[in-house]
């Protein structure tokens, strides 16, 4: 019995670096072996997909890229999938960024997806990059009524009036959908608060997993769909693959590929959580059985404190 308790005490004092090592190994091995699991799309993800699917060709879709390289592994697969889907449906894409590095993320999609996979699309007619604009939610509040008040040029320095896609566009209220991809503030929440709700513009969002619980309350009245983290991106890729078989190639399924390591690592973390709770419970019972020492205010807690 004493040997068992000694082992449990050793586990209780386990150096946290062992946990880091196990998590690291789980990710590396799952990535090396290319583990992949099928995803079942949830209603919130399906709602975003269905909305893009239901819009008529030529619809105006605003794509705010409010994230940076720090969250690129989580959000870039989502952004790529959104762009591919919108282009397949023949929608017109308007990119914008409220984060300084969001501009680079837009360029990444334009150079990595649009220019490579859809070279026939013409800049200014099929898609436009409005670029980064400083001012956080202030920018949204202004362009809700007057786009040209704040945007005089696009990201490439061309005058707004010279861009055919923007010629008859007074403000963002004429957009058919705002498809926000965000990693924090300003992001999806601000697009809902300052554009979607006051302007009655449909808003759907793709966000980091950390943000998702904060955005769920806006669904379904103010946010028609929400994609939280890499899992939602994988579900979206699954839907896209089912509807458009040309996207079944592994090069289009980045998020699905990343869900393999995600699942394995979660199993490791769940194991450690259970292990930690079991050792804690055993030791607490053991300490309660032991007589309280002189000066222990609360029997059973002194040793741990």
């Amino acid at each position, binding site marked *: 019995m004493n040997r068992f308790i000694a082992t449990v005490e050793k586990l209780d004092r386990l150096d946290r670096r062992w946990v880091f090592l196990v998590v690291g190994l789980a990710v*590396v091995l799952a*990535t090396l072996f290319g583990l992949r699991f099928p995803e079942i799309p949830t209603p919130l993800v399906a709602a975003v997909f269905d909305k893009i699917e239901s819009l008529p060709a030529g619809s105006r879709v605003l794509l705010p890229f409010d994230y940076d390289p720090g969250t690129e592994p989580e959000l870039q697969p989502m952004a790529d999938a959104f762009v591919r889907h919108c282009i397949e449906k023949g929608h017109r894409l308007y990119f914008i960024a409220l984060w300084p590095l969001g501009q680079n993320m837009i360029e990444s999609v334009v150079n990595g997806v649009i220019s490579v996979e859809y070279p026939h699309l013409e800049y200014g007619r099929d898609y436009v990059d409005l670029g980064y604009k400083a001012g956080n939610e202030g920018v949204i509040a202004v362009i809700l009524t007057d786009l040209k008040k704040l945007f005089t040029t696009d990201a490439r320095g061309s005058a707004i009036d010279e861009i055919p896609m923007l010629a008859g566009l007074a403000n963002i209220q004429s957009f058919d959908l705002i498809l926000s991809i965000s990693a924090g503030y300003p992001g999806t929440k601000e697009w809902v608060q300052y554009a979607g709700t006051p302007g009655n513009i449909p808003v759907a969002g793709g966000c980091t997993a*950390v943000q998702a619980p904060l955005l769920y309350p806006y669904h379904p009245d103010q946010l028609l769909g929400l994609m939280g983290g*890499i899992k939602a991106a994988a579900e979206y890729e699954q839907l896209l693959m089912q509807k458009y078989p040309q996207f079944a190639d592994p090069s289009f399924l980045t998020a699905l590929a990343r869900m393999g390591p995600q699942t394995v690592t979660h199993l490791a973390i769940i194991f450690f959580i259970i292990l930690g709770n079991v050792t804690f419970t055993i030791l607490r019972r053991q300490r309660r059985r032991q007589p309280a020492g002189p000066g222990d205010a609360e029997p059973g807690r002194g040793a741990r404190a």
Partner: protein
Amino acid sequence: MNRQRVIWLAIGLIVIAVLAVRVALGDMDNPFGSARNFGVWLAAFLTLAILSFLYKDNPCYRFAEHLFVGVSAAYWMVMGFWSTLVPNLFGKLAPKLASQWFLSGLATQRANPVYLVPLVFGVLLLMRLSPKGGHLSRWALAFILGTTAGLRLIAFLTADFMVQTQSTLVSVAGLGQGSFNFERLFWDLVMVVAVLAALCYFYFSKAHTGAFGRFSRLGVWVLMVTFGAGFGYTVMGRIALLVGRIEELLGLWLRVI
């Protein structure tokens, strides 16, 4: 040199030797072969340097951390100049001059002297750096605080307070949902009870005893479930970032996947 340092030095030398052999065999890109290759190697080194903090603090980690802070600060300054000052200030005050010097697209605008106001406020804000004129920056700060508070108050009242309350009420009444759906009604009731319980927990004008106390205890459970969901999502988010970095290391750098 202590034993631990010798061990780490040996591991480092072995890793460098293995990498050198792989480069020589053509299994990895030569870091000095092109700017892209050098960038890949630098990104790999910085990733490993940051991850090394998980073991313990070390000079490699500190170098990467300081580099990140410095680059970020410089990037913000450059972005601020090109995306804010040039189009929103110089382009509005002197469009022709700004189009000649900075962005040609600004030439189509007309000069707007109203933008002298933000210019003055901007200068006043910089007065914080002056030992005698520091108090002048309060004018600009007061403007920023006032407008931000006003803007956020309206947005919060309409988008959060009003619409969120409305969504909860409509949901429980079952209005606008078409045919009766028991499952939907059940989850709507769960949501409404959870909202009320959580609100009760934060109501401090009445002692949390009796039925009210029990209901507010339910609010604690609601909060705990919310925190649990938040934790789970956070774990998923962080692991996703780690997977992204590992993919880069194994794919772009080591070329083993």
